[in-house]
């Protein structure tokens, strides 16, 4: 899933200051799972804003809604009839949802309510960590299902650097060395001989470094 983190309330206050009526829009997918932008967080943010502006003696109306997703036309359309009532929208979806909303409702200011961080997993409640950088050319088949691009600090493709110590990465003792994990798992799978193969120089053109990307699937296009 896409993992997001909460934005400091002060930042959001700065964005919406001066508006009279705003809509906070949550998203029922990834940001709900990572507890940054679901229905619950929409409610908490709305109350905090109402409270803040009331204390400041400013009148602001804050409405709430949570859509199934903000990255699909279908669900974003649900607010078409009400959007014009609002001076601005704060979207608690990931950056994708915020932008899709802004594209759709061109004349309405749309503000991001979360910091979108990465594609990752829930390790345990309250702990999320990165697993994929969407490089567009997956090599997990070669690396025992562990991604060195997203998990090795240096994105090394041919084994650990000299800084790997006791299974930990040189940048932090709280971070597993991705290459230690890869080697351990290759051993477990009895495939350690594959480690001998030199990974070819990576084609980064399919990654974000190659420019903004698009997937077009003629077979499913309507």
């Amino acid at each position, binding site marked *: 899933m896409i993992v997001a983190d909460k934005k400091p309330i002060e930042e959001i206050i700065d964005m919406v200051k001066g508006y009279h009526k705003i809509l906070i829009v949550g998203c029922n997918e990834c940001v709900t799972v990572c507890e940054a932008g679901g229905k619950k967080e929409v409610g908490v943010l709305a109350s905090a804003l109402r409270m803040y502006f009331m204390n400041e003696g400013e009148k602001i109306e804050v409405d709430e809604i949570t859509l199934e997703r903000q990255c699909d036309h279908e669900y974003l359309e649900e607010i078409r009839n009400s959007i014009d009532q609002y001076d601005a929208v704060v979207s608690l979806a990931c950056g994708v949802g915020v932008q899709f909303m802004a594209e759709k409702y061109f004349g309405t200011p749309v503000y991001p309510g979360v910091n979108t961080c990465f594609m990752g997993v829930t390790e345990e409640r309250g702990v999320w960590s990165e697993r994929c950088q969407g490089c567009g050319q997956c090599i997990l088949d070669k690396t025992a299902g562990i991604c060195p691009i997203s998990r090795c600090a240096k994105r090394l493709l041919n084994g650990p650097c000299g800084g790997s110590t006791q299974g930990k990465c040189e940048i932090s003792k709280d971070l597993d060395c991705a290459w230690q994990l890869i080697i351990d798992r290759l051993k477990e799978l009895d495939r350690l001989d594959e480690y001998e193969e030199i990974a070819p*120089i*990576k084609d*980064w*053109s399919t990654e974000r*470094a*190659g*420019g903004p990307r698009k997937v077009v699937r003629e077979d499913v296009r309507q």
Partner: protein
Amino acid sequence: MTLKEKIASRKFVVLGEFEPPKGADFSRLTKSANQVKGRLDALVVPEMANAVMKAGSLGGCAFLNAQGFETILQVCCRDRNRLALQADILSASALGISNLMAVSGEDIRFGDHPQAREVYDLDLMQLLEILSNFQGGRDMAGIELTGAPAFCIGSTVNAGAIGGALDIEIENLERMVEGGVQFAITTPVFDLHRFQQFMKRIDIEKVAIIPTVLLLKSAGMARYIDRNIKSVSIPSEMIREIQKAPDKLKQCIKTAAELITHLKEMGMAGVLISTVGWEDKLPQLLDAAKL
């Protein structure tokens, strides 16, 4: 007089573009530079123009500097992060390079290594910020340097922008000037009327504008550029003249020389002559332009 002094006093400067080779043999670079020794104020050494891998600007400048040429280093955001950029700028200063141009760089996909990762850790405005910190004796992290470099700083400007794009270009140029840019080299100029419209928007007191004069090689090349490069337009009359000339090379040189003369008459701060591989024709061109 150094390039910096000439630019500051708005004396007409003549610059030449000298691409380092794709390879370790720099002898051709030396040979072509020596052919015009004493006739150019400085040599601009591009940093992997069009994202085509070759020897870099720093190496080229250091090499030419050692042979007594004044050079202009290109510092490019595309391939280096903030550490590498700062390191190169310090090295350049220590190697005696005193002029530099901050550039964004063409996209990697246009070049011969499209699978490479682009860097763009900093953009042009941020790179200029580093340079100004540097001249104040501090690096980007605010740490004091042992010895602050001092450069005459330039950049590029798209003289072919029109409409809204021109407004943005002018705005950006103003920002760059505030960021310390003293000269700006333009995209190749052929259409003087269009160029005059561009110049009307510039405060030449604040920044020295140095148009690029590109030595055409054929009518075909001219037509290609005119059709495919948005920022450059070439008058059809100019193309026709090359096409019907019995000696095409002579006509191409005449065209470039006339452009230089006109630009000088217009009061421009100088010209950059770009010959894209035809550096050996530079002496002839300089003769024709009486430089």
